[in-house]
């Protein structure tokens, strides 16, 4: 197989894998949460695509690596974008407010401003405790929790980028 055929094959397989993964994630949504359904379907899609690529891939190691990496980058970036496309409308308070105004449910500015009675920080503390990212000791102090700190790692990456770019949030 030529090098050109290899990277085109990689592209086609990645797009096909992504379409299958998106369909599977929507089909299993009835039985699981959005994040779990989506993560499982994306992992399945990536494994299926990689298997097909390994079976058909070029023998040259450099072209094999390049073809697989290009396909994986395309697959993962579009999977990430599709996840945000599904997730943002469900979690963004701003989009929920816009939706309420669009449906004519709420038009009063004061009601919108007090839509949530609890401070958002309090709500997040409860969520982080429930997911095990935080733990509360008997003296009432909050510390990092026992769960795998995947969220802390993401926060640290964003924090690093914020320092590199000198962004003030």
């Amino acid at each position, binding site marked *: 197989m030529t*090098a*050109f055929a*290899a*990277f085109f094959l*990689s*592209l086609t397989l990645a797009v096909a894998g992504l379409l299958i993964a998106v369909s599977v994630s*929507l*089909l299993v949504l*009835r039985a699981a949460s959005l994040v779990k359904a989506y993560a499982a379907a994306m992992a399945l899609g990536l494994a299926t695509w990689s298997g097909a690529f390994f079976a058909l891939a070029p023998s040259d190691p*450099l*072209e094999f*690596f*390049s073809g697989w990496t*290009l396909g994986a*980058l*395309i697959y993962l*970036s579009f999977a*990430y974008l599709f996840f*945000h496309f599904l997730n943002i*409308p*469900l979690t963004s*308070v*701003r989009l929920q*407010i*816009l*939706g309420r*105004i*669009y449906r004519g449910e709420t*038009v*009063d*500015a004061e009601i*919108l*401003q007090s*839509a*949530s009675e609890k*401070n*958002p*920080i*309090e*709500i*997040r*503390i409860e*969520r982080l405790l429930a997911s095990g*990212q*935080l733990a509360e*000791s008997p003296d*009432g102090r*909050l*510390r*990092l929790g026992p769960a795998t700190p995947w*969220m*802390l790692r993401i*926060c640290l990456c*964003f*924090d690093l980028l*914020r320092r590199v*770019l*000198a*962004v003030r*949030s």
Partner: protein
Amino acid sequence: MSPTGFHLLTLVMGTLTLALSAQILVWRFSAHSKRGAYKLLALIFLGGFFAGIGIYAGLFEATPTEKLLGGLVFTLAYGGLATAYLFSYVGVEHESPSSKILLAIRRRPEGLSREELLRTPSGEDPRTLRLETMIETGWLETRDGKPVLTRKGRLATLFFSLPSTLVRHCAGGRG
């Protein structure tokens, strides 16, 4: 020289690195508003895309079909990664409450009380900022003291209602 997967991978990563370096330089040495930042960011990454396509078209010799398909792979890889970065940049600029909490606790190994957390991570209550921000970004306007959707806000609402309808439908109304 004919394009190979390795050439394309190098070109994609090279142009993305250049675009990111340009952003770091611009962000460090120029002052810009939050809204202006997104336009500037889009311009930088679009510039990187056209530079990459220009290099690809000028450097490689291939049949028209090969050039077209190679260009398609470059567009998908660069476009996908650059758009994913732009989505992540929103998280860099608008630090989420969860991130503020976790980073504040990480800096204090002895832990923080709820009261301390409510005082330290953010200055202003985000609830009061939401309407102002949406009016500032042109999604809402006020008529007779009431917020109404602008054309831009209506389009955004319709666009983003699509996935939530899809998720609710697939989850059997539970989404």
